[in-house]
């Protein structure tokens, strides 16, 4: 493992782990997990939907907390973390919403309802897509504006979690997960592990890219400054050319 880590770095190790775990999770879900009595085969999507939804909330919180640090301490490291987490959050949000829509269509007969859990999750996704748009096109203050957006996005996470408790929803309650039989848990764990390992690998990769980008910018600025600075021994202006 250490040789693997030396060759590919932490993201490589995480991706390799996900690459091994995911086929195992697939065969467990489709071959070794009993078919749920009420929803039938459509329930299998739960093993992919739930990890993506949990990952969405986790990365939204990481992005929000890092954004607070970025705003309070002007921390570049926190900015990189917030941005990388925001991107992974947007990606997982698309996965969670799409898998939820497919599952909903099979079990509720409609891919979308005005359910509080669905609406709050879709809003979180929209906030993080807006985060990415602002971070890219927001002008000189893009980083700080985007950070403020991430803070509001993180505030949505507890609302998503408690939405099934506060409002009457069609979406299954949180207790459903706790009451899963052991054979379903045995399939859920590998799926959770694979999807989170893949997400953290992408997060780490983007984090590294941001840091390398920052170093390149600094080097470029230093180079520009040295080009602009007048040579030490030059003739008076007008004759130097």
């Amino acid at each position: 493992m250490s040789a693997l880590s030396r060759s590919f770095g932490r993201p490589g190790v995480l991706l390799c782990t996900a690459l091994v775990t995911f086929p195992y999770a697939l065969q467990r879900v489709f071959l070794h997990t009993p078919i749920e009595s009420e929803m039938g085969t459509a329930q299998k999507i739960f093993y992919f939907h739930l990890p993506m939804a949990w990952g969405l909330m986790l990365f939204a919180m990481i992005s929000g907390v890092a954004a607070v640090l970025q705003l309070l301490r002007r921390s570049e490291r926190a900015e990189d973390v917030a941005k990388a987490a925001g991107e992974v959050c947007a990606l997982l949000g698309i996965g969670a919403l799409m898998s939820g829509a497919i599952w909903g269509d099979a079990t509720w007969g409609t891919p979308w309802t005005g359910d509080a859990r669905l609406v709050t999750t879709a809003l979180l996704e929209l906030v993080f897509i807006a985060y990415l748009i602002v971070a890219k096109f927001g002008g000189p203050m893009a980083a700080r504006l985007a950070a403020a957006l991430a803070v509001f996005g993180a505030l949505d996470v507890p609302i998503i979690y408690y939405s099934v408790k506060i409002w009457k929803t069609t979406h299954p309650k949180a207790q459903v997960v706790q009451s899963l039989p052991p054979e379903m848990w045995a399939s859920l764990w590998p799926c959770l592990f694979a999807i989170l390992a893949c997400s953290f690998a992408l997060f780490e990769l983007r984090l590294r890219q941001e840091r390398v980008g920052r170093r390149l910018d600094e080097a470029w600025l230093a180079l520009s400054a040295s080009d602009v600075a007048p040579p030490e021994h030059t003739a008076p202006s007008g004759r130097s050319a």
Partner: protein
Amino acid sequence: MLQNASVTALRQTWILARNDLRQELRELELLITSVFFTVVILALYAVSFAEMSKSAQPKAVPGMLWIALAFVGALTLTRVFEREREADTFGALLAAPVNRVAIYGAKFSVTLLVLCVCSAVLVPGLMVVFPSSGVEGWSALEMLATVLLGCAGFAAVGTLFAAGLAHGGGKNVLLSVVLYPLTTPVLMMSLVATQRVLQAHPGAWDILAKIAAVDVILLIVGGALFESVLVGGAARGSGGGDSSRGAGGARAPRGGEVGPNMLGDDSR
């Protein structure tokens, strides 16, 4: 001590808001454009939904009200800060010995006032165009509270981001990208409250209390983030440095707003 600071901040808010209102009263530019835009939306609703059945009106009219207010709100927020940008006074305002929360409060108050004026046109207008939208004897006081609380939530979020975009020279089109996802919860709650008010539902005050709670959270978060977003927090240690990225994607190492302006797309 804390009480004195609060009183000072409130006094500064009042002075800044009064200054903005005085400017507005000289030309009425913001009010005229916003109210005219409201009337245009109302006319479009009247033309488009003239044949709407009586049974559909109670469900549709609250949606029309809040969609119109969301559009007018974005226009108002853009214009409130555009004036500062045109005169290049926002930087001076931030440099002045004024509590930054007072600036936020003043801009929030002006936006809220303009939205309330537009609502005063929009709500009676919708009632005239769609007379079956509410039951007999719905409460005007409840409607006033709904409009006030809904607009306050919208303005609380909008003021923060409109200020950030105006100060940083960001593109105004981004305000809509930011504003609508963030204000959707408060707009949706206001929509439900409006439906209940128009139906004289006994649970109208329950949802109004929830909107008020959301408004308080949005105002606290907006006020708390205002200074950090516009000016930036205190740099800590040697690792600190403004992390703003230039419009062209380049970053200055510790250059604040100078770096990004220095670097454009061409400079790479």
